């Protein structure tokens, strides 16, 4: 699970609170305010690998500069706060001298642990539906 996966999947409230806590003291300029747009999803069949378009996904896009460094935020859905937050973190992580390196990694690691636990639990619930049908002649 990489940083983008954590930031797009973690609870929105947690992410917004984290950004509220760290943005004081940062010079944040909006380049592209959060806006809705679409991404066309390209798929392929699983045998011949012939490409085709599956349909579009609604996404929110945002671009900011943080202390002059560009950051790009993208996430699925109508989620302006999340896209804005991801853009800020992207800018910070792209800096050679990131003043909030530790805080960001602590936040991501914490959220990643929660998401991973939740996913493993869901997986184990799904495994409960594993079936082994017996053919009638078998015991």
């Amino acid at each position, binding site marked *: 699970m990489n940083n983008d996966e954590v930031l797009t999947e973690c609870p929105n409230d947690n992410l917004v609170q984290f950004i509220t806590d760290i943005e004081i003291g940062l010079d944040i300029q909006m380049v592209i305010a959060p806006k809705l747009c679409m991404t066309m999803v390209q798929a392929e069949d*699983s045998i011949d690998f012939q490409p085709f378009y599956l349909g579009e996904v609604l996404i929110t896009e945002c671009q900011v500069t943080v202390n002059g460094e560009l950051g790009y935020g993208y996430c699925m859905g109508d989620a302006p706060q999340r896209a804005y937050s991801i853009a800020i973190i992207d800018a910070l992580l792209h800096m050679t001298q990131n003043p909030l390196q530790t805080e960001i990694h602590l936040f991501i690691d914490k959220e990643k642990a929660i998401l991973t636990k939740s996913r*493993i639990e869901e997986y184990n619930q799904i495994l409960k539906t594993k079936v082994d049908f017996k053919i009638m002649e078998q015991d």
Partner: protein
Amino acid sequence: MGYFAVKGGADAIQNSLELLDFYRLKNATSPLEINQIVSQLRIAVGKIMSEGSLYAPEYAAIAIKQAEGDLLEAAFIIRAFRTTLERRFVSETLNTREMFVRRKISASFREIPGGQILGPSMDYSQRILDVKKAIETKDTIDQILKAFDDKIDKEKLAAITQHDKVIDLLNKDGLIQKANTDEDRRLTDITREAIRFPAPRSARLQMMTRSETGALMSMGYSSMRGFGSVHPTVGELRYGSVPVRIKDPRGRIRYIGAVEVTEAEMITGTKKHNDKGAALFSIGYGLCFGQNDTKVICMGILDTTLRNPDTNMPANDQEFVLYHSEGIEAMGFTNHLKLPHYVTFQSSLNNVREAVERNK
């Protein structure tokens, strides 16, 4: 008979729309919340995203609410909405082998890699009306969730694993017929380029993944019943979440979320054999947004029929299948019959009256 442009009626149309809302709300029940629809009408939301051709669960839920549960109308609303948005990206190719699998079954093989996982499915339900659903409360929902949560021992959790697909095994054994080398493999986008027949396979798959489930099912069913020649088995059917990634302006591949999809590989026997004399299989492919077994199974059947064109069999006729399973167009054309046809109808009526007079 054609229809004519009419004018006027704005007040009546506005009043009609208000009356529509009145009938939806007149019993003053609690408002349907969008997250309730997303969560509790999950299958319907998936259908709207697939037919509306836009993956946006909350917006699909709003459309369902707005259309009072008319799924064709809801899909129409979503298709209209998507035309208002700019397409900024094309994703990296979706890799369904990365799927977080919630369901995977095969009707062709009893033992498949990782085993058969029923997942969330109504397949073996008794279809007995569960009247307890009528008296569900917040408390009963909490009890159900608690009991469900207690089913697993959180100290002994299995790690998430991914497994080969059934078709990968068949492929390794050289049992799958290769696609014709002269097949049209161009990647076209039917939302940007009007479809022409014969259509490349990419256009056919794109049209089928957007098509109306019931219509697609009737076409696939016709082939299985004998008005066609394809009666396959499910090689593998999977439902789960697949990551979507785009390339950002720095050229980095970025994860933007996961889409829930259903995927089917449908196996059909062929008359061809490999070098060792073993009979080869052909695979029909189905993939759509949401959880919709019926749709991907029929898409897989029709992928095979449409690769074998034959205008004597409806399900093998590209134009017949693709145009008539396109729900939004079909609904639009059908409903245009309600629009005023007064002038042309009057003209027809006059012709009939004159003919009757002449024959007196």
